């Protein structure tokens, strides 16, 4: 039986014919990840390269698969909620939002206004934190350690603000069917606004240290361009799509949870430098969106209505009546949505979730051809995937 480097081949398989070495330029096959420092978790990329030039990059996913959707179908409604936090652990509240909205729509639950505003505040806080993390991480991938830690400092403060109201630092379990877990504690609003000021204050620092640095601009401008068509073909959503010049933001296009009450812009690329959809614009898009989110937080906290934070009928033992619904919402990384079917039983009949990272990761394969390895890192860092949500 034939073998290649000690590995036995199956029947019918045959080793490739060996050409004389001097007439072929050797390609290298790299196994990038899951332990590679900049694959953001447990992503594994099989790279075929010619020296430094990437010929093919194939993402191999599934190392973190936990059957999230099936678990949700085997737990009661209230039990399922802490699980979705574990999908996109960097935008956990937005994941809860994605789960809760279709169920409420199918069941026809009207969420109290105050709860809706609180949901918006938490989602936007979480979005700022997530974008700060993504932007810092991208800087780290580009070799700039210091801005990463500066952004982490503000992220830490934001996590403390969230911790104070939700009780968790990363996995919040805050949003419930029909409302939210807890009303704002005393003095929390002031602390939250103070944090918003702090982020606004430091935004200049990040920009002049990292975003407009000459080396950083040269590394990212025009690198790994994901144009409009590719993005739309692959179902790419979120900041990546907007950086490519498509003004699609579900908060604006299909407002949910009172987003229509707030005045905010949807930043769309291209920005000052580079071309639409390159790595730099994706980075800039995130920082711009963080600024807009802070605007929303300020408005929501200013106009926070009085009232209940929980629908009185939706209790712990609540079951959704038979029905189905699909609602999409805007998570930090793109569209999170769920298709929910209920047969009126104790458990959801079907819960299918569409996560943004899973679709965004698919574009790596097309976009990475012909890049240098350093550019591939720029691509992965600026696409910003969370493997917990890709593998689910």
């Amino acid at each position: 039986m034939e073998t290649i480097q000690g590995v036995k081949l199956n029947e019918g398989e045959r080793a490739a014919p060996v050409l004389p070495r001097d007439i072929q330029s050797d390609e290298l096959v790299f196994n990038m990840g899951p332990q590679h420092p900049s694959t953001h978790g447990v992503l594994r990329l099989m790279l075929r390269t010619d020296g430094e030039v990437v010929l093919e990059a194939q993402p191999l996913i599934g190392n973190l698969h936990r059957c999230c959707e099936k678990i949700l179908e085997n737990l009661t409604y209230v039990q399922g909620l802490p699980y979705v936090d574990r999908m996109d652990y960097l935008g956990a509240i937005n994941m809860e939002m994605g789960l809760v909205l279709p169920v409420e729509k199918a069941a026809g639950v009207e969420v109290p206004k105050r709860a809706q505003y609180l949901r918006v505040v938490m989602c936007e806080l979480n979005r700022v934190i997530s974008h700060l993390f993504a932007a810092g991480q991208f800087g780290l991938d580009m070799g700039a350690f210091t801005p990463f830690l500066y952004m982490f400092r503000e992220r830490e403060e934001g996590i403390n603000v969230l911790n104070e109201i939700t009780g968790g630092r990363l996995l919040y379990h805050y949003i419930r069917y029909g409302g939210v877990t807890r009303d704002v504690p005393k003095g929390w609003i002031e602390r939250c606004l103070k944090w918003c000021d702090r982020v606004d204050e430091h935004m200049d620092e990040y920009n002049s240290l990292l975003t407009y640095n000459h080396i950083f601009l040269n590394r990212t401008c025009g690198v790994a361009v994901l144009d409009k068509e590719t993005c739309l073909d692959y179902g790419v959503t979120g900041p990546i799509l907007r950086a490519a010049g498509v003004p699609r933001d579900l908060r604006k296009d299909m407002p949910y949870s009172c987003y229509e009450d707030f005045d905010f812009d949807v930043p769309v690329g291209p920005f000052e430098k580079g071309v639409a959809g390159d790595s730099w614009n994706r980075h800039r898009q995130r920082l711009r969106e963080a600024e807009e989110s802070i605007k929303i937080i300020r408005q929501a906290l200013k106009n926070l209505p009085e009232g209940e934070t929980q629908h009185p009928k939706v209790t712990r033992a609540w079951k959704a009546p038979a029905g189905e619904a699909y609602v999409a919402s805007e998570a930090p990384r793109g569209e999170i949505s769920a298709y929910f079917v209920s047969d009126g039983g104790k458990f959801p009949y079907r819960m299918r979730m569409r996560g943004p990272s899973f679709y965004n990761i698919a574009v790596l394969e097309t976009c990475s051809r012909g890049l240098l390895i350093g550019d591939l890192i720029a691509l992965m860092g600026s696409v910003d995937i969370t493997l917990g949500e890709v593998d689910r």
Partner: protein
Amino acid sequence: MLSFRQWAGNVWNGLKTTFTGLSITVPYIFRKPYTLQYPEEVPEIPTTERGLHNFEVDLCIACDQCAKICPVDCIAIEAEGKGKFARMTKFEIDYTKCLFCALCCEPCPTECIHMGPTFDLVGYTREEVIINYADRENPRTFSDGEKLPYEIVSFARK
């Protein structure tokens, strides 16, 4: 092709942004560090923190509600007797499984289980992170009468 003007502009931009960067990072050398020296300086934990549970064994009536609602089945309860005369023999929380979702605190009729502020639990084996709160010989609980070292925030929902 770059014109000489563009070339010189690039060089100038490179130098300029480098010095802009330095003017941001260097002053930090003379500022106070942001970090906490963890074991000596304990971070401020909000009262809402969902840390390790605090369980008041004398209040518990072994109704099994918390074990039922737990999404991961990490609570194991055993009791002798029934109803009023129930006596806990085992109330074990398996922290290798626990999600810290605080769902167990909600249905409790006597409000005997809370989420505490303790966030660190370490052990060399898995058995060490399975805690029996009803162990009367070496109790981990705050029995009634003793004041809790922090304010309890009830996760119970009426």
